[in-house]
């Protein structure tokens, strides 16, 4: 029985964080022309960072909590029963946009690689960090092509960790800012939410649901479908398009700088472990 309860601290802390976050509630933030909304779910991430920075919770608790994310995230999938089914018609009529917007995930290559090379003068690690949003699928692709102990591997692992820590916060703010510009239809923004990571998808979609409550079901259905789609095609997109494009741009940008592009090195990193989200 004692072992049965050994992880109770993790659950109790989770409960306290949920209560605190929900009681703070959502707040609008205005920074000059940029407006965005902070949601309870983002506060839990910030609380987690603070708890770790001040070393309030032991590493063992963090390790216990990690696999629980994978399980609990499925509740989001179950929630989709109420949205995808009834909106199948909308998903089919939006089919062309839904599929083509997947190529938008490549848009990132066009500015992450040039900025990495031209502004920061980065070596091969820019390809690892810049070709995708560095989730599990990207780690597998890079690990397979270059090895995780290469410069590219260092880049993708850095991206993975950045995404784990700041991904949801950045996604939440980014989608909120874009929704406030009024340039995009909610359906277009909804489709953009699906990037292949369930937690980033929820952070992306939250400001949209808040802004267009009447379209909430349609928006969520599109976002969730787009996320499942990205999860399926992500690997092929990376292998066939994103990495070749990144390599081409990498060479081109170094040519613009008038220098020979740096080659990849093998890193001496400690064993890198991949956590399933």
């Amino acid at each position, binding site marked *: 029985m004692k072992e049965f309860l050994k992880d109770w601290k993790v659950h109790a*802390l989770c409960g306290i964080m949920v209560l605190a976050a929900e009681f703070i509630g959502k707040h609008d933030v205005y920074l000059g022309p940029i407006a965005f909304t902070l949601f309870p779910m983002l506060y839990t991430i910030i609380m987690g*960072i603070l708890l770790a920075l001040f070393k309030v919770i032991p590493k063992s608790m963090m390790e216990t909590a990690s696999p629980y994310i994978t399980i609990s995230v499925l509740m989001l999938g179950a*929630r989709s029963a109420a949205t995808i089914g009834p909106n199948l018609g909308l998903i089919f009529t939006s089919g062309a946009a839904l599929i083509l917007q997947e190529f938008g995930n490549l848009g*990132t290559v066009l500015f992450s690689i040039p900025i990495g090379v031209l502004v920061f003068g980065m070596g091969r690690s820019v390809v690892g*960090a810049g070709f995708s949003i560095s989730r599990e699928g990207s780690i597998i692709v890079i690990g397979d092509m270059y090895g995780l102990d290469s410069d590219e591997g260092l880049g993708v692992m850095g991206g993975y*960790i950045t995404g784990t820590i700041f991904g949801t916060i950045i996604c939440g703010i980014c989608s909120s800012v874009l929704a406030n510009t009024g340039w995009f239809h909610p359906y277009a923004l909804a489709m953009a939410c699906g990037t292949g990571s369930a937690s980033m998808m929820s952070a992306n979609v939250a400001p949209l649901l808040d802004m267009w409550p009447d379209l909430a079901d349609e928006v969520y259905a599109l976002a969730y479908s787009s996320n499942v789609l990205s999860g399926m095609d992500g690997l092929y997109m990376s292998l066939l398009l994103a990495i070749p494009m990144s390599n081409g741009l990498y060479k081109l940008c170094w040519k613009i700088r008038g220098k020979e592009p740096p080659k990849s090195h093998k890193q001496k990193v400690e064993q890198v472990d991949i956590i399933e989200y």
Partner: protein
Amino acid sequence: MTGNWYENKWFIRIKILVISAVYASIGNWIFTTKAGKPVTPGEAAPALVVMVILVIIAMFVQSLFERIPKWPKLPTALYLTLINTYMGCDISPFQDWIVTNISKVELMALCTPILAYAGIAIGKDLDEFKKQGVKIVIVSILTFIGTFVGSAVIAEVVLKATGGI
């Protein structure tokens, strides 16, 4: 079966799902109260119970399929989505019940417990994060923004072109 019953994969899965559902019901109560349309945990309970059962069915179906030799390892979410799409679509006898009840659980309230677990787990990556170069961090942040903006622009253009909006 190896190990003790409380280390059993299925037991842990069900435990986490139930705890998340309980927290979500309380979070949902606070969230909906603030929005002016309170949904008590009791009202949300039937939907949450069904959601937990749907996830368990999806996991069970997955484990059955994975007994087929050479069956590819697919994410649980894919099985779950297929089951749920049927459950909620027009030919499903459960559509009405599912739509009225599950809609009572606000998506945002459901996300909070999940990200709370993620928040607790985050600390183990912080040290590694500090070791990464600032440049890699900035490039990664650019990719999150670029992916979102790129997809939104294409979706907007295609939806306009095909008359979707």
